[in-house]
Structures are given as C-alpha cells and as structure tokens.
C-alpha cells in the first residue's frame, strides 16, 4: 500500500474521535469540520516527511484546535500567523492530550457526535446523510452517488440538516446513564437505517449502494469499541455482518434477486460470518435479549446452515415469536409466517398472514408472501391477484421481475392445463 493510501486510512480512522473532540471544544459543527479539514491538510504535508505521530487522533485534535483558533484570531485581525513549525512540534502536548482522551470523555464525545446526527426533527435520509458526511467523512459527491441523487441536491440536504441541528442545540452536558442509553438506542437505529439504505438496493445500483452497508458496519464496530459490553450493540453489528455476508449471492449476473434458499452459499463471506457468529455468542452470554440480537440470531441460523434444506426453521419460527414480543410489528409476524410455512405448512402460515391484510395492504412483501402461500395451496386465481398487487407495489425492477416469474409460472401452468 502506498504511503498516501496509508495516510488517508489513518485520517479516516482517526476522524470520529477527532471530530468528536473538536465539536466539544467549539460546540459548532461547521467550525469543528473546518478545523478537522485544516488539520488533515497539515497532516498530509507533515506526516510523510516526519513520519506519522504516535497517536494520529490526538495530533489532529490539537492541530485542528490551534488552526481553528488561529483562524478566528486572523478574522479578528488580532494576531499574526503562527509558523507551521511551531504547531507541528507537539510531542509533549500530544502525550498529555492523549492521556486525557482515553477516558469516558472520549466515549461520550463520539456518542454525542453520532447522536446529533439522529435529531428527531431530521427525516431519516438526512440523519444518514449527515452521519456519512460528519462521522464517516464521505464527500458530498460520494454520498450523492450512494443515494442516487445529484451532488447539489445532496449538498442542500446536508446543509439544511446542519442548520436544523445547530438550531436545535447539541447536548453538551455529560449524559447520565439513562440519557446515554437513549442516545445509544437512537444511534443504533440510525446505523441500521443506513445499513438498510445499502441493503435494499438491487441490480445495477447494488455495487454503488453497498458502500453504505460497509460504512454502517464500520460505525457498528466503532460503537462496539465504545461500548464493548452492550449486547444490543453486539447484536446490531452481528446482524449487519451476517446479512451483508450474503451480498455476493443475493443477485444473479443480470441483477435479478436470488432467494436465500437458492443462493450459492459458497459465495457467502466466511470471515464476516465468523465475526457475526462470534459477536452473537458473546451477546447471548449477557442474557439480555433485544430486537437486534434476536434478528442476528435468526440470521446466524441461516449462516450456520450449509444448505438451505438444513435450515432450522422451528428455531427460526420460535425466534420470530420472541421478536414479536420485543418489537411487535405486522412485518415481524409476516416473517414468522414464512418460517411457519416451512414447519407447519402454507395453511398455518396463511392463517397468520390474513389478519395482517389491513395494516400491510401497501407492503410489497405482504402480497408476495401471501401469493406464494396461496400458490402452494393450489389457489392459483387468488395467488395471481396477490402477485398483481405485489408488482404494483414493487420498489425496484428486481422486485417486480421476481414476482413476474411467479405470474409467468401460473400462466404457463394454466396454458398447460387447458391444452390437456
């Protein structure tokens, strides 16, 4: 790897911590961002020559803080520019600052940085875009491409989000235990939203948008380093790893959806699965089940099955029942119905599905699953109707194409029957 690649890697890795500390100093997102950018520029000039500092984050915080203070002074025309040599000579100060960065301060700083992106006034897409810009350090162009919008539209969206956040006022006091738990929950929800933005992509968009999954996993690991003993954080990170591990197998060469039971499991990502399973093992020891852990446990059962036929459906149905208890939602019940169809048959599944019709009438998967169950029971006409409604609700061409296959099959069978 080239020096420059190493340097950019080091800057990206130090970013959340450095940005978080700079935000605490300046209490202003824009000043913190400018300070970090200035520090990064100086790092690009200094590090290749002098070698990287022992603690890149501490270096960036100190240089960024000084640079921002200089800039404030310069604007006030009070002080002359300091020489760069003076700023770069940070050995003693760096050690001192590094010590102070190690404690709980640092944890609350980074959590705060993530949390201000999750302001409830911000729509989900703005929360995610802000986190990608501020915490992950993606450029506006990169974020725009991942969201499939123009760069200026994304620039506007992020600027608006920043204004809202600034107006709302970030919470700078040290959080109490209950507040910390609330912030953590909001941040976890945002990270999973980010993951799903990438995960729900399909076809030609999938490679572009799967970068969002990588960023979400990176944030999950960051959160885990801050809260190493939180089982739900383990569950969330495991869930994302286990789902993303299937990325290469989820679509065929033409971009069409490949159902899990038909996926080539040798294309699943082994190390990602290993990491996800390790995290689930750790989480279970805490005996504090939560929605993320249960979903991860379900994904783990799939990951542990060498073939689709080996899937432990009774256990999966049981886990969905537990998930219904932790996170009651018709979508969860729909998923349980799919598991039940494998253990008790389509009849039992349909009995679970029918009562959901009112609440899920606008949900693509509801009609898709219902159609599949009806088809299984030989009720082709009703199945056809359900599939037609599903197609009308498909969000991506791949989803529509998948349902189209079912309809084609019904039509082919009907044609065959009529010729007999």
């Amino acid at each position, binding site marked *: *790897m080239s*020096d420059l*690649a*190493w340097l950019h*890697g*080091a800057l*990206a*890795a*130090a970013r959340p911590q450095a940005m978080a500390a700079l935000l605490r100093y300046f209490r202003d997102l824009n000043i913190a961002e400018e300070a970090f950018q200035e520090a990064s520029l100086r790092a690009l000039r200094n590090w290749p020559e002098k070698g*990287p500092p*022992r*603690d890149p984050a501490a270096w960036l915080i100190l240089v960024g803080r000084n640079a921002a203070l200089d800039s404030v002074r310069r604007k006030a025309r009070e002080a002359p520019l300091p020489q760069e040599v003076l700023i770069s000579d940070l050995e003693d100060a760096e050690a001192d600052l590094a010590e102070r960065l*190690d404690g709980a301060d640092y944890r609350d700083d980074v959590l705060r940085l993530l949390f201000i992106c999750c302001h409830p006034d911000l729509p989900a897409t703005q929360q995610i875009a802000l986190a990608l810009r501020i915490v992950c350090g993606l450029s506006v162009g990169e974020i725009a491409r991942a969201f499939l919008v123009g760069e200026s539209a994304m620039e506007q969206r992020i600027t608006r989000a920043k204004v809202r956040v600034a107006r709302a006022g970030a919470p700078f006091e040290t959080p109490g235990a209950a507040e910390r738990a609330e912030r953590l929950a909001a941040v976890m929800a945002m990270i999973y939203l980010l993951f799903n933005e990438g995960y729900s992509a399909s076809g030609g968009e999938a490679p572009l948008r799967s970068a969002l999954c990588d960023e979400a996993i*990176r944030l999950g*690991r*960051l959160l*885990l*380093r801050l809260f*190493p*003993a939180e089982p739900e954080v*383990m569950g969330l*990170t495991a869930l994302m790893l286990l789902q993303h591990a299937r990325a290469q197998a989820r679509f065929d060469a033409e971009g069409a959806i490949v159902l899990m039971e038909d996926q080539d499991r040798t294309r699943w990502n*082994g*190390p990602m699965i*290993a*990491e996800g399973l*390790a*995290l689930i093992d*750790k989480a279970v*020891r805490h005996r504090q089940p939560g929605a993320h852990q249960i979903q991860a446990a379900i994904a783990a059962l799939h990951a542990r099955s060498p073939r689709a036929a080996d899937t432990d459906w009774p256990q999966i149905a049981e886990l969905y029942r537990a998930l219904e208890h932790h996170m009651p939602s018709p979508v969860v019940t729909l998923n349980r119905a799919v598991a039940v169809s494998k253990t008790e048959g389509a009849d039992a599944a349909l009995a679970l599905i029918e009562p959901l019709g009112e609440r899920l009438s606008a949900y693509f998967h509801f009609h898709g699953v219902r159609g599949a169950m009806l088809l299984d029971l030989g009720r082709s006409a009703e199945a056809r109707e359900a599939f037609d409604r599903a197609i009308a609700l498909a969000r991506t061409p791949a989803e529509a194409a998948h349902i189209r296959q079912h309809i084609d099959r019904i039509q082919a069978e009907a044609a065959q029957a009529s010729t007999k």
Partner: protein
Amino acid sequence: MLYTILCYHSEAIVGGWSKAQDDAVMEKLDVVHQKLAAQGRLGPVARLLPTSAATTLRKDSDPPLVLDGPFAETKEQLLGFYIVDCDDLDQALEVARELGQANPGGAYELRPIGVYHSSTLPIDANP
C-alpha cells in the same frame, strides 16, 4: 529457534481498508509467505478477527471474571501472528522487515518461543 512474530496495527485503519486494498496487501505478504514456506521455515499463521469479537477471562479472581473485549486497550491491537523458524534474532528481524515492506504501518513484536506443541488440528481446519 522458533520465533513468534506478533502483528500489531491500528484495527481502525486496517478495518477501514477496502477489499481491493486488503487483497493487495495479502498478495504482497503471500510472496514472503511462499518464500519462507519453500525454505521449510513457516509455521502456523493466523489473522485474528477484530478485538470487538474478543472475550477476556480474568483468572486472578475466583471464580474467574469474563469480560467483553480484548485484554488490553491499546492504540494498536494484536491482529495476528506468525511462527517462523529462524537461526537467531537477526534472521527473525530480516523476516519481519520483509513482511513490513509488504505491509507497512504498525509494529511487529518478535518473541522467541519457549514451549511449542505442534498442531493437532486437521491440515484444512476452518476458522
């Protein structure tokens, strides 16, 4: 003499590599691995999962305490290790330098091995 080469690097940096970057580093390292293997000097090699997957058993209390995370919170983390047969420290350093050229950044700790039990795992054991 058997030496362990313990590989330390910032997990946040290594974890941030794209797949292409990671593959490129592994490919370069593999050249060094092949050379050592051809000389019959390469023992077991392991790349560890992130420290977030680690669990620590503190055995200085009774019963031992199980803690989430790695034993030590450090700026750079233990990410893997090699076992290499070397005549002396100079030769071990030579190996470490070569590995370091293939994979710059971080540090290698060279530790001679006191007791070594050879592996009883099947040759193709999966992680």
